[in-house]
């Protein structure tokens, strides 16, 4: 897939991104390297995996990382119940003695996401979500999969990928990932979008939204994100929820009171809502909206 096709595909599925993101994803696909995406929660990291699966018309295999995740949950596990039944059946039917290799064959193997991605008949998209939440030991275990696209199962030997999967790793940067893992990936940082880009995202994701409303909401959210004292800045996902709610309320433009009334869709902690009421308030929103009216930026986005 060339760069232009990828650009058109992203537009087609409604994932609005800048040239830098597009080119990095293109390089990762072309070089068959995993892509490590970092950024604040809600900027579209996980969505990237889903979108790639949609574009490539293939399966999305997702591995959600958490503390304590190990290879039995990520790679493979033997189906012990079935093995046990086989042993018991063998004994009661008095058949000839069962061999160990019969029990540890593919018939009794439970494939977990990593193995499924490697064994897939068609190139799959493997999304390793929130990799920073897993233990460093598991991170080291991922090295083999991500560098050689093969895994070792003691009873079966080394299994190499039939098709090298498209690997997307996401991280919220809760802890520093090891250099070894980073070395195997191309790196992409997704930041909060500029207002103009957010307008495009809103229009792509919320059909029927009024031009003015999309611009005003993007502008207000963009201004809110500039407040460093907010504990949790509103993400793109929250902007979209907010706009959907406003559309459901049949609103075509914002005002200070409406923002204050629907604030809980945008700011998700009590401290942030208190901060908004104290430092910004409906009057502050009106000022932001007035500056929107004065400038020609909105017309540019239409």
């Amino acid at each position, binding site marked *: 897939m060339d760069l232009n096709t990828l650009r058109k595909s992203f537009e087609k599925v409604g994932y609005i991104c800048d*040239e*830098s993101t597009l*080119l*990095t994803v*293109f*390089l*990762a696909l*072309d*070089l068959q*390297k995993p892509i*490590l995406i*970092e950024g604040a929660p809600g900027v579209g990291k996980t969505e990237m995996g889903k979108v790639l699966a949609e574009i490539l018309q293939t399966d999305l295999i997702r591995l959600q990382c958490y*503390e*304590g995740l190990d290879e039995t949950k990520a790679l493979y*596990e*033997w189906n*012990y*119940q079935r*093995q*046990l039944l086989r*042993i*018991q059946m063998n*004994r009661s039917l008095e058949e000839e003695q069962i061999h160990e290799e019969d*029990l540890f064959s593919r018939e009794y193997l439970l494939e977990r996401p990593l193995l499924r991605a490697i064994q897939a008949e068609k190139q799959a998209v493997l999304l390793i979500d929130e990799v920073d939440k897993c233990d460093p030991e598991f991170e080291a275990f991922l090295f083999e999969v991500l560098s050689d696209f093969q895994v070792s199962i003691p009873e079966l030997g080394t299994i190499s990928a039939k098709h090298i999967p498209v690997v997307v790793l996401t991280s919220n*940067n*809760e*802890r*520093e990932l090891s*250099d070894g893992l*980073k*070395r195997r*990936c*191309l*790196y*992409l*940082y997704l930041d909060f979008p500029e207002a103009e880009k957010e307008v495009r995202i809103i229009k792509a994701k919320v059909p029927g939204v009024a031009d003015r409303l999309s611009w005003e909401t993007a502008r207000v959210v963009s201004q809110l994100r500039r407040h*460093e*004292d907010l*504990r949790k800045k509103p993400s793109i996902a929250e902007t979209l929820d907010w706009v959907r709610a406003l559309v459901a309320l049949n609103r075509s433009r914002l005002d200070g009171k409406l923002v204050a009334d629907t604030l809980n869709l945008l700011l998700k902690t009590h*401290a942030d809502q*208190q*901060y908004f009421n*104290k*430092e910004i308030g409906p009057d502050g929103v009106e000022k932001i909206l007035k500056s929107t009216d004065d400038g020609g930026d909105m017309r540019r986005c239409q």
Partner: protein
Amino acid sequence: MEKIPLGRDSHLTDNLATFVELLRCEGLPLGTTELIDALQALERVDLSDRTAFKIALRAALVKSQRDFAAFNRIFDHFFVDFDVYQNRVEQSDKYQQEQQEQISLADRDLQFKGESLQLSDDELKQYSSMTQDERDRLQEFLHKTETGKNVEPRFRPLLENVVKSHLRYCRNRDSEADYNKASGEGDGAGSGSTSTDQNIREKDIEAVRSSEMPSAEHLLQQLSRKLAVKILRRRRVGPRSGALDLRRSIRDNMRFGGVIFNLKRRPKRRSKQQILLLCDVSASMKQYSTFVIHFMMGLQDVVRNLSCFSFAEQVENLTPELKGRSGLQHVLESVVRHSKNWGGGTNLGSSLEELSRKYPDYLNAKTTVIIVSDTRTVSIDRALKALEKLDDRVKRIIWLNPLPIERWPDYRSVNIIASKVEMWPCNTIAQLEEVLTGRL
């Protein structure tokens, strides 16, 4: 699209290797793999498109958002437009020519009995870079020596040594001045040589200015999160506890034909750990007050069961103020201005005794105590005893000392306390980061 086959364009490969070397000097952990990745990435982009060229390199070479600023700065200096490059070459040629002329002039100036002194090009360049006054003085010295009584040609080596020593002295003096100037500029708000975050990271925390506080606060919040993750990470304990793990039991007993002889249990997770933060707010710590407040607030943001105390001559529970806070100003108002401790003398011993007496519920085997203090206290022996008792009650004591590490040997209290509890420097955010990412 202009494509290059990998390894064929040795000029580009050489340039890229030099570029990677420069990034390494900035602390980016880059190996040959990254260089190969970068070359492969460049094969796939239009080399005449500067933006695409930059993005491709960044995707392959930069693995953390923190390094973006360094990458951008070096890229913009290293990969320049052809006009700029030509201009630089012309300037370089011109500079070389001027240098040659200056060396010739210096050679002509520095003579003894009609013959040039045996000086290296570097020494002659140093002479050229000196002020007119300094050059005149050196020439005058040579002239006086030359015309003195009983001066013979065999004095030449001696004279050369004197001149060389003087030039060496001037060079050292100039380099020191350059370094100080550069350091001074680094502190300035308009410094463009390094990124703001990097400046703040390396800066003594007492010297962080109010304009840099938002960045410092952000960095401290990130570090607090890391610290919390490190301390609160729940480890597995021995196999004898926890609920029955049927899967592992069956697997382990497969060798007995499925008859379960050995029971396997699920590893039990430890319950959530607690952090108790104890911050010294006495007069000697006043210069670090902003750091202390931000550190407290940063930890508060990420640790749900954080207890926060300040101490000087007595302890004060700040947890309610921090939990109900709404912004830095409020915390400063309630914690600093209304505090009985702020700016007082330090009595670590009595403070720790009071902590154990008044707040016994906070101190148990799940508690990690973080003390932020410069260790300067009265009655060090009493403090030591109280510290030992506290150490017996809690899981771990971590001491973060904001004093510069080179000053630690000057204080007896630092040496004594460091021998009893683990003590780490936190004079700069970079040091704190190093401790948290590696050694702690």
